């Protein structure tokens, strides 16, 4: 009996690989399993190998496995590309149509998926036939798929639903006749708890909605587009607007314009777009305009690997803008955190009147995963210092001191349209009234005013530490690597090592104190990140974290980091 399952479906992009994986994942999520899926796809619409790998377990793992128990193959290429990771004695279910062959270490079930589907009404239902065969192998009743099939097809009529259920049933029975109902592969039953199932991008979108975001100018880019696609469906309910702009430069400048106008505005992009936004991010810093920018990192530089995993924009996010501005960079790690981070980002942006960048990575943005309950009360709206009647009265007859020098560096905002609040805003160095002024004295005090806003500011829970005290090894991670590290930690602990997992959830202001504390007493430190130049580890030393013995685990081939890779790396060190 299986405690957990690593299942994969592969085929040509555009032939239903994604919908097969999703139907399977949603059905199992609704049975109470924890599900984590990862898509391998290319920057093209039709053709080319793609696959969807799904981890099913009774406790939460936010990582895919390094092996596969069951592979559904719609073509020979899917077997050729993936069979090596199918474990000894694992199963390949393939369409008889292409006379599949598989290596000796796996058990191959050749099932006429297409032929059965055609008999049920249409060849496209071959994915349903394959799901039926999977269910038989795993000891799951086919009824677990009914709800999902109805949600997908009922609008096309009951007949289509019946045909799809028939296809699933025929696949199940065919597998059974081949002796495919194997108790070894029976999945231990889950408790039936219904949890959410969503990707990071959807959680970000929902978080933006809850945070009171009302304007989102953005330019389509993988893997960010889901956020705008989600919000464009939701915004009409709350009166918000998504503008698909002509480019990312327009997107960020429009975001700044809307934020200056008093709306909560955000934009969402990936590395190439972040590069284009840099000048205007400086404008937001200089004009103290609160904007939120989501960067869903993917493989760079240039077009790089647009559909692959990487975490290589960290230095760009911190240092990309010319000149010097106060800025905040947040790094959520889970879907639950994607939901809350947007509200947090807006509150910080408005409290400190500066740009806030939220960085995800492709794996976090696109991996659909079981998500614990999300609560609206976890998103609080705090708009920071805004001028009231008394402030406006005090400025009556003159110009409103939008950039008044204060101890905190934060000055009250007033939105255009407000009577008595007239003031000028410019990216040129300016005085308290916003009027340009290039004198040395003014420059010094205004620069200090802006930089003072974040001086000494620590963002709560920038570092979260779990695991053993005085560890033999402390593993530092960021973003979606949280799952692979958590799992590697368990394996290392099982081997008798004392291990701590130190996860970083914000890199600006850099949590030096929190990180130093979390690493204290660690004999060895490994920094795990998806890039080639150890950006996070270099940031640690740049910001003065005393950790000379830190080593890097780096992965930059476009693939997600696997628990076993971290495990083996740490074992070699010990």
């Amino acid at each position, binding site marked *: 009996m299986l405690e957990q399952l690593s299942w994969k479906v592969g085929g040509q992009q555009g032939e239903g690989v994604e919908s097969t994986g999703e139907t399977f994942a949603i059905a199992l999520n609704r049975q109470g399993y924890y599900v984590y899926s990862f898509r391998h796809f290319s920057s093209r619409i039709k053709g080319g190998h793609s696959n969807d790998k799904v981890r099913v377990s009774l406790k939460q793992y936010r990582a895919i496995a390094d092996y596969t128990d069951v592979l559904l193959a719609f073509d020979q290429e899917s077997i050729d590309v993936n069979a090596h990771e199918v474990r000894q004695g694992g199963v390949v279910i393939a369409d008889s149509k292409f006379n599949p062959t598989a290596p000796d270490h796996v058990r191959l079930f050749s099932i006429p998926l297409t032929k059965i589907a055609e008999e049920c009404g249409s060849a496209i239902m071959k994915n349903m036939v394959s799901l039926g065969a999977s269910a038989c192998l795993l000891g799951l009743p086919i009824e677990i798929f009914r709800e999902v099939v109805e949600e997908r097809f009922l609008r096309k009529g009951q007949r289509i639903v019946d045909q799809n259920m028939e296809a699933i049933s025929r696949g199940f029975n065919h597998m059974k006749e081949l002796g495919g109902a194997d108790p070894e592969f029976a999945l231990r039953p889950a408790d039936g708890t219904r949890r959410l199932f969503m990707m990071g991008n959807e959680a970000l979108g929902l978080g933006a909605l809850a945070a009171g975001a009302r304007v989102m100018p953005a330019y389509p880019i993988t893997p960010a587009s889901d956020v705008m696609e989600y919000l464009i469906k939701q915004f009409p*309910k709350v009166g918000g607007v998504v503008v698909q702009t002509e480019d990312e430069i327009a997107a960020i400048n429009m975001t700044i314009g809307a934020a*200056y106008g008093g709306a909560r505005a955000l934009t969402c992009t990936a590395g190439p777009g972040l590069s284009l936004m840099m000048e205007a991010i400086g404008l937001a810093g200089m004009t103290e305009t609160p904007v939120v920018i989501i960067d869903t990192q993917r493989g760079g530089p240039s077009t790089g690997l647009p559909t692959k995993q990487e975490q290589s924009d960290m230095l760009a996010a911190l240092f990309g803008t010319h000149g010097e501005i106060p800025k905040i960079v947040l790094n959520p790690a889970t879907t639950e955190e994607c939901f809350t981070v947007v509200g947090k980002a807006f509150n910080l942006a408005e409290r400190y009147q500066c740009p806030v960048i939220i960085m995800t990575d492709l794996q976090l943005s696109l991996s659909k995963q079981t998500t614990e309950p999300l609560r609206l009360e976890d998103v609080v709206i705090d708009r920071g210092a805004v001028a009231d009647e008394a402030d406006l009265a005090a400025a009556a007859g003159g110009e409103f001191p939008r950039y008044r020098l204060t101890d905190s560096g934060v000055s009250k905002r007033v939105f*255009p*349209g407000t009577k008595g609040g*007239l003031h*000028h*805003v410019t990216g040129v160095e300016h005085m308290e009234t916003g009027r340009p002024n290039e004198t040395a004295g003014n420059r010094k005090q205004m620069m200090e005013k802006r930089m003072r806003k974040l001086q000494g500011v620590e963002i709560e829970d920038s570092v979260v530490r779990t695991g053993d005290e005085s560890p033999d090894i402390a593993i530092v991670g960021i973003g979606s690597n949280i799952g692979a590290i958590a799992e590697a930690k368990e394996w290392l602990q099982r081997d008798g090592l004392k291990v701590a997992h130190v996860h970083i959830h914000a890199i600006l202001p850099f949590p030096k104190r929190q990180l130093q504390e979390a690493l204290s007493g660690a004999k060895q430190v490994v920094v795990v990140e998806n890039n080639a130049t150890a950006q996070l580890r270099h940031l640690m030393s740049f910001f003065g974290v005393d950790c000379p013995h830190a080593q890097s685990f780096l992965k930059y081939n476009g693939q997600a980091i696997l628990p076993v890779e971290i495990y083996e790396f740490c074992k070699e060190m010990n």
Partner: protein
Amino acid sequence: MATVKDFRNNVRPNWCPGCGDFSVQASIQRALAGLGKEPHEVAIVSGIGCSGRISGYINTYGFHGVHGRALPAAQGLKLANRHLTVIAAGGDGDGFGIGLNHFMHAVRRNMDITYIVMDNQIYGLTKGQHSPTSAHGFEAKTTPQGNIENAIIPTQVALGAGIGFLAQGFSSDVNQLVQLIEQAIQYRGFALVNVFSPCVTYNKINTYDWFREHVYNLDQVPDYDPTDRAAAMQMVVKTGGLATGLIYRDDSRVPYEDQIPGYPEQALVEEELALSEEIFQNALKQFA
């Protein structure tokens, strides 16, 4: 009610004496007063360059952003507060060089904002390089042997992009310019007023006198029909882009803001931000 004086502030422009932009500044002030606007109801969003400073020289809300991006910022502002009178302004380099892309798309998007370009056919603030509206053969610091590129004709580009309101003025004719700006502000949709605004320091070719000789004033063409797009295109081609006055207007357009599904009549900045539990729970259903 606000008067022209209320739209003046005590900031002294850093423009050269005789610069065409003074007339544009005065025309905007007169137009706003003429339309009965109050200073706090107006925001001027400008780009970079000599003319980009204009947002600081008129007593309204003013936003002076980065080079070439006045239009995106102005559109964002309009979305946040649809009841503001939003005017974007800048020079020919800002609008038709670095920012041309945004101009084309602002035309296409058709938000209710007015764009005023002070077109002097030269880069002034960087001291005399050729601009996208400099004529072929024009000698400047970066074209010492004459410009080998062709000029952008703003009115042709605007009509080509499908603009709903197009006017062209000349700094010497303030009365006409005030009228054009008033009409542009009143127009419900994206409106361009391109203004020939001579640079007295760096452009020794396209001077006040040169424009006086070359502009073709449509106010003096009684049978010109500004609602006929084909005729307008013919006019801007025939005059080499030198026609002044109201060139084209189409009052059948519906501005962007009026087409956004669910977009409230109340300005977004006035809206309650907290999400209702009901909407939230409904949104969660998709992921259950």
